[in-house]
């Protein structure tokens, strides 16, 4: 019997020794940050982290690479955080993920660090709150903007109808094939375009109390307006129903459209004379409003959050605080063209020099920023909405029943996950 014990013990000891030896070789604790780390953005991040590391010699900081595509990064985050991984400590989150991660308990609330929330855009901070607590801090903001050709349309349209008129005129008189281009493919981008039309007519996807409001009259008007722009007025091309950001940018860049709805990233590219045929002839404003509503810009961008299971939360917050300093934000504006999340910077010379677009123009759009619904199941809600929006836009269904169906499915989903607000 002794031999049995010896045998088993020997085998186990061997295994244990092998595993222990390899475990012992794991690297010492490092503060890791995960986010966009390719190309110029990656170099910038590493530069700023090095600067931080020099100010905190006791810390080692590293970047943990994630894929560039939003869905792939989201999936990887979900895998790590659900597994209660200790790394990464700091995460770059898409603004629409914060509520989801907060509700799942994957990121920790930042209240105890007493962050200076008033220094950031209120809409961006609101998108980073869940059940009253703050779970992330805005890093940079993205907003949907209306680009226009100043040589064809010298003054900005005052409302949607004037936009349609001017677009039509540019097509008829100016010989431009497309009046207005926006992202109409069946994906998240379509929802952001819809948010802007919806806000123009005074509607919301979820109201302030969190109730589904996408079957309102305003929503019906907004969706009908979008549909008519394609099929009745011919201002927006049918092809746009398969376009995402890049296709619309390329069309506008080649001079084929009088107006384009897109994100800030396009501005620098459009002003680049070596590849753009419209350089120097563009301006940006928020998407105009309509009777009953106001000009609206869909809010995007990224925020920084701390992993709940991080073993260095204070150090992680120190890093976040550093990356959100004005100096770092201005550098980011200059290198990657992303808009800082601090309103105060828009009055500074530094930002004016860093950005291609004028800060006051940018500020005008950001002032109209409306976040998408802050709810843990935003992804699912968006999927439901995308299907209905696209069906209405491709005329497989009328806007009213399409939105009603979407609203019913969204209510059912919220009920199923017990997120129905009281009083609905």
């Amino acid at each position: 019997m002794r031999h049995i014990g010896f045998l088993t013990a020997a085998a186990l000891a061997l295994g244990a020794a092998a595993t222990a030896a390899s475990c012992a070789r794991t690297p010492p604790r490092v503060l890791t940050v995960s986010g966009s780390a390719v190309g110029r953005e990656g170099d910038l991040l590493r530069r700023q982290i090095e600067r931080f590391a020099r100010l905190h010699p006791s810390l080692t900081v590293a970047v943990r690479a994630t894929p560039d595509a939003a869905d792939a990064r989201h999936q990887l985050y979900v895998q790590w955080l659900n597994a209660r991984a200790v790394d990464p400590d700091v995460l770059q989150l898409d603004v629409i993920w914060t509520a989801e991660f907060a509700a799942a308990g994957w990121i920790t609330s930042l209240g105890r660090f007493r962050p200076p929330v008033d220094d950031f855009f209120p809409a961006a901070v609101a998108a980073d709150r869940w059940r009253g607590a703050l779970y992330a801090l805005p890093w940079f903001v993205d907003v949907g903007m209306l680009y226009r050709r100043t040589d064809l349309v010298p003054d900005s349209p005052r409302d949607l109808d004037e936009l349609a008129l001017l677009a039509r005129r540019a097509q008829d008189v100016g010989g431009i094939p497309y009046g207005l281009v926006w992202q109409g493919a069946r994906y998240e981008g379509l929802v952001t375009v819809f948010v802007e039309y919806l806000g123009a007519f005074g509607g919301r996807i979820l109201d302030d109390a969190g109730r589904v409001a996408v079957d309102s009259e305003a929503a019906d008007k907004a969706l009908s307006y979008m549909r008519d722009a394609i099929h009745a007025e011919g201002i927006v091309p049918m092809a746009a129903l398969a376009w995402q950001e890049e296709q619309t940018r390329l069309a506008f860049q080649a001079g084929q459209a009088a107006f384009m709805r897109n994100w800030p990233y396009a501005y620098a590219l459009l002003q680049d004379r070596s590849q753009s045929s419209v350089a120097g002839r563009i301006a940006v404003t928020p998407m105009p409003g309509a009777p009953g509503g106001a000009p609206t810009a869909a809010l995007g961008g990224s925020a920084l959050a701390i992993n709940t299971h991080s073993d260095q939360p204070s150090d992680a917050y120190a890093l976040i605080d550093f990356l959100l300093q004005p100096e770092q934000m201005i550098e980011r504006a200059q290198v990657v063209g992303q808009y800082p999340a601090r309103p105060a910077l828009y009055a500074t010379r530094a930002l004016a020099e860093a950005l291609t677009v004028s800060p006051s123009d940018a500020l005008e759009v950001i002032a109209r920023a409306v976040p998408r619904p802050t709810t843990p199941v935003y992804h699912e809600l968006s999927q439901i909405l995308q299907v209905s929006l696209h069906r209405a836009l491709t005329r497989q269904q009328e806007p009213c029943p399409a939105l009603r169906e979407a609203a019913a499915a969204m209510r059912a989903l919220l009920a199923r996950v017990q997120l129905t607000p009281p009083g609905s």
Partner: protein
Amino acid sequence: MKVQAWPLVTILLVGAILFPLYWVAIASLTPEGRLFAQPTLVPDALVLDHYRALFGERDFWTPVRNSLVVAGATTAFCVALGAVCAYALARLRFRGKAAILALVLAVSMFPQISIVSPLYLVLRELRLLNTYPGLVLPYLTFAMPLTIWLLVGFFRQLPPELEEAGLMDGAGRLRTLWDIILPLSWPGIATAAILTFLYSWNEFLFALSFTLGPERHTVPVAITLFRGQYQVPWGQILAAAMVATVPVAALALAAQRRIIAGLTSGAVKG
């Protein structure tokens, strides 16, 4: 005419079987730009760039080490515990044997996907995700029944007089097992070890589910996750595929007789 048909069929089939491997091997030595341009059966230029990049830039040593440790540890555990268990099941008398054998066979047929979720939750609770033990433990699910089955078949084939001889010499059962039976069992144990190592090296689903990052990814997972950057780096992927293939191909070559005997003893289901 019929007499000549079979050799031709054999050549065609074997050619079809070997072609993809040949193609991957050649591609792994072809410069990236030429990979999708005018594929030719016989290459003209061969380069080692992809292998160099694989082990230089990409640090492919880590997944290789991870696979070796996990497959090795799994094999060691399974052989150690499984051999004695198989001996008991094959050559000792006790009640419940048939039921246990049936149970072991049934377990070996569990779809892996069916136990991923509880294993994940348990490993997470024990903080074993993304660790070596966190992979070896799940691997025992399929490796242990496999080893036991193989060795039961093998032990049964040993002459029945062995225990008798041992007892007559006054040795206890344990002594007999240790000094007489086991030394004679090396061929069977070697087969079981080889097959266990092979299955563990090739395993994918558990490695994908229970590891989180490159520090603990095994070779199959590491290769799969190469994609996802800008373009798919086919040259490096195929070089990595060759690296993944070499150990098990070598094993298959060296031990083909044993492996085939083990597979066809009716004990293994592929």
